[in-house]
């Protein structure tokens, strides 16, 4: 696993240590969670998530596309109906 060095203000470093202690996590785990929340995902994790979704859906390509078109169309019709005339 690669290691890296980051520079933080004294205040931020103290806050990081306190947050880790409060949550019973390591600093590495806190940083990892923060990166996840900031949308910094590993490409592999997103592809894995997609593969699981595709497997779970149980739909053929044709079924998936028909459902996607119908639901997009329904969403648009509902939004259009909500708009003031």
């Amino acid at each position, binding site marked *: 696993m690669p290691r890296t060095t980051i520079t933080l203000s004294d205040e931020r470093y103290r806050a990081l240590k306190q947050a880790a202690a409060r949550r019973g996590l390591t600093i590495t785990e806190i940083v990892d969670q923060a990166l996840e929340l900031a949308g910094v995902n590993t490409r592999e994790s997103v592809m894995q998530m997609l593969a699981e979704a*595709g*497997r779970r859906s149980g739909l053929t390509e044709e079924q998936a596309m028909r459902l996607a078109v119908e639901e*997009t169309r329904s969403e648009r019709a509902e939004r259009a109906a909500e708009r003031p005339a």
Partner: protein
Amino acid sequence: MPRLFAVDTNVIVGGVLSFGRPSVTSLVLTALLDGRVPFVISADLLAEYRRVLLRPIIVERHVWASTDIDRLLAELTTAAYLRQPPDDGAPDTDDPPPDAPAGDEHVIRLLAHEPGASLVSGDGWLLDAVRGWRDVLTPAELVALLGLG
């Protein structure tokens, strides 16, 4: 500037639901994430990707939490060219937009703002409305055009 594409919501959702199977929308979604298809997106279209992926019948299929959807959208946004078409700009009389089905206005606004972009959609109704005003492609045609298979 490379040729740009505007990818309709149904292509993204179809790609999620058929990911990993032999599927053109799965190939398109992978290529979008890989940066192999230069595409434009607006805040309105991105918000619609999210809303449709959160519709109950779609959630039943992918079984994602909203945070999972946001992870995918963050990845897509990283790869996209962001555009901000005006909400209700006056139509360009030299390039009048078509009468599209109700609810498609955000797609039309994006295409009006980015006239060089080709629309990629699985919705025949919208493709028919836009054809002649802008270039349109089905997902299968995009796969063939860019050799994504």
